[in-house]
């Protein structure tokens, strides 16, 4: 009897599966005006933030400001709105899986937070649609767009169509310890203009005992942190993005890649960096703790490091004298003028935003809530006492005036930075880059590592087409 039961289970399974419930059916484009006249509306916001944990400020802002304010506003207009918040607060990859599953089944929240580089793959999968298709052409009339720089908007776009509203931006810089610099005879307001100058500073720091001169993220243990705070900023400093949109090619075994790996070889080969640290599971966090303890001279990181890691009161590796001791400077291109678009200085930006769930019951109201969340007042409220880069220029101009580091990023770094390509295969390319750095750190020559990298890229893409090499 059990065997029969099992057979039934098996056949049912196969039957269901054969009807193709893996793929999705193409839906008719939905009416963008559906639910527009409803007087009782329920909306849900989903974000990778949780009160008391990850991104707590955002969670608290949503629960304590956005929801009450919006509900009150709508009530004044005679609409009874209930807004709920679905918090998560877990690792980005886990969060991504969760919302992918939700969007795939047409369930989940109406407004969903999304990292910029996921937009492409979610769009290709049909999980998200351009805003104009969800809400209508009124989207383009929102005045907030003028306040958001084009490059930042592009982070939440795909194929030149806007899929969501960006929720912030960031930039990568070089942090350095002014006290160690003074000890090594280096200038307090240091501004390197080439990679060689960074190496020179490192060599000067090498004389100080117990200090690791340079922390340049490498290896696979650090994951995307190696790519985003290591390889990619260097790569754009050689004049190439990892993916050339016009040519449709990924960087393979090119001179640019070899140059980047060459810098890694210099840093780790000359003993300017700690190779073991790059291989430890907690290596990145340990490098932060070391910098906070004053045993690392130069570190490449994003502004997140300034405001969440070494922040004097609430950071995970707090530095009480951060403002006096820690300096920051733009990342130079390999040589002046060798950066992308001929830039002397370069950076990478990331960031995410919020999209609308195509299956939402109330697209018009959801858009209203989304624009409310991105209004100048709401954005100002989110920043509160802390200081972070917002997506809006007007808010940045007002709030960051008091924080030199963040206004530096907003005014001088973000305009220079490049973004990662939001394509589904990017994570595998990223892993290939991480592996290439690991190969160099553990002794391979840049040429060998680059050749091996090219093989990995070919394996990821499934063919040797669309790869640039020389």
């Amino acid at each position, binding site marked *: 009897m059990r065997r029969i039961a099992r057979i039934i*289970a098996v056949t049912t399974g196969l039957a269901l599966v054969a009807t193709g419930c*893996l793929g999705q059916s193409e839906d008719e484009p939905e009416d963008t005006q559906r639910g527009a006249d409803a007087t009782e509306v329920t909306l849900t916001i989903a974000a990778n933030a949780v009160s008391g944990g990850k991104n707590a400020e955002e969670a608290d802002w949503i629960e304590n400001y956005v929801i009450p304010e919006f509900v009150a506003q709508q009530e004044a207009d005679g609409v009874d709105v209930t807004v709920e918040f679905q918090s998560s607060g877990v690792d980005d990859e886990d969060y991504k899986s969760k919302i*992918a599953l939700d969007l*795939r089944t047409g369930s989940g929240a109406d407004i969903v937070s999304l990292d910029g580089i996921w937009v492409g793959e979610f769009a290709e*999968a049909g999980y998200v649609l351009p805003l104009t298709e969800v809400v209508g052409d009124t989207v383009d009339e929102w005045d907030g767009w003028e306040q958001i720089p084009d490059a930042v908007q592009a982070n939440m776009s795909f194929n030149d169509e806007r899929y969501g509203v960006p929720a912030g931006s960031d930039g990568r810089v070089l942090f350095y310890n002014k006290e160690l610099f003074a000890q090594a005879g280096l200038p307090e307001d240091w501004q390197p203009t080439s990679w060689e100058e960074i190496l020179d500073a490192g060599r000067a720091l090498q004389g100080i005992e117990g200090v690791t001169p340079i922390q340049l993220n490498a290896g696979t*243990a650090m994951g995307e942190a190696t790519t985003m705070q290591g390889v990619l900023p260097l790569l754009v400093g050689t004049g190439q993005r990892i993916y050339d949109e016009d040519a449709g090619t990924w960087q393979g075994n090119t001179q640019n890649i070899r140059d980047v790996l060459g810098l890694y070889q210099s840093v780790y080969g000359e003993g300017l960096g700690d190779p073991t640290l790059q291989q*430890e599971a907690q290596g990145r966090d340990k490098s932060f703790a070391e910098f906070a303890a004053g045993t690392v001279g130069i570190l490449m990181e994003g502004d997140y490091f300034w405001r969440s890691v070494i922040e004097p009161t609430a950071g995970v590796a707090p530095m009480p004298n951060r403002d006096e001791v820690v300096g920051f400077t733009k990342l130079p291109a390999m040589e002046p003028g060798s950066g992308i678009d001929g830039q002397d200085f370069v950076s990478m930006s990331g960031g995410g935003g919020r999209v609308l769930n195509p299956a939402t019951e109330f697209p018009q109201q959801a858009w209203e809530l989304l624009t409310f969340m991105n209004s100048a007042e709401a954005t100002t409220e989110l920043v509160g006492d802390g200081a972070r880069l917002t997506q809006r220029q007007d808010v940045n101009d007002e709030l960051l005036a008091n924080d030199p580091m963040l206004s530096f990023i907003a005014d001088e770094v973000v305009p220079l930075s490049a973004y990662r390509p939001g394509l*589904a295969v990017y994570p595998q390319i990223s892993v290939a880059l991480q592996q290439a750095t690991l190969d160099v750190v553990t002794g391979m020559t840049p040429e060998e590592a680059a050749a091996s990298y090219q093989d990995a890229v070919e394996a990821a893409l499934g063919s040797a087409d669309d790869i640039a090499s020389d």
Partner: protein
Amino acid sequence: MAQQTALPPAEQPTAPAPSRTSATDVAGLGRGRAAAFVAPAMLLVAVFLVFPALWTLYIGVTNYRLTGVQARTPEIVGVDNYVDALGDPTFHNALFLTLVFVLFSAVLGQNLLGFALARSLATLRPVMRRVVESLVLLAWIIPSSIVAFLWLALLDRDAGTLNALLQTPGLAWLIDYPLVSIIVFNIWRGTAFSMLLYSAALASVPPSQLETARLVGASRWQTLRDVVFPHIRGHVLTNTLLISLWTFNDFTPFLITAGGPNDRTEILPVYIYNTAISGGQMGYGAAVSLIMLVINLIIALFYIRLLRERR
């Protein structure tokens, strides 16, 4: 009722064997009621285990991804995933590492230590016995994510407890001896189960036979081999099978070494995580899962052949 206590060895049921010499349906269950007893469990298992598992295996023949074009329109690629996996040197590496990991930490480590503990603890004073048992069990009970932090703190290069004890500052256990580290870790983590199972198994050895062996002057090793082992043979099979299966699929080492310096501890569960989650290729990940299942099946058959009681 003094007469039924010592069953002659030939009739004593041990390993799960398809043929039994005696009728065992003493409770008069009959096929029908037996089915009713089994039904609730089977229903749960059929819906929440068999169905998703088979579905997962189906995904293994597609190029399904969670995002991207292949999420919307996955294509059946037949055995491509399997061919790719079996030809991938990283997969071979992961398989080799996993086999080594299972062999040393589970089959040898947990088994032997669990058995030794079960046997020796009986001779200790109750207080000592309870302390040791509790510690061993705690290691098993504490959730994985916490245990990972405990071992990171223990083996840390600069400030770790082990280096402090051994006065070897700067020795990077997890970088220089990664596989050994996770093997030792897994022994620490899982011995409790073997200890429990062997405690119970040893209790079922008839004391009369042990007494006889002692009178005859058999050495401890001979007693073990000729008296104890035949009785617990089936339990050795069960235990080894379960702990091999569980260790084979254990993801926890990832939390400590993240796949090891340069893939040196990238065991199969970590390999699947890196491909199916980080890389997003669910079809490929599912295919590798099936390969793992087949390997576990082969290992299980090997154990059964080795340990099943000869009739």
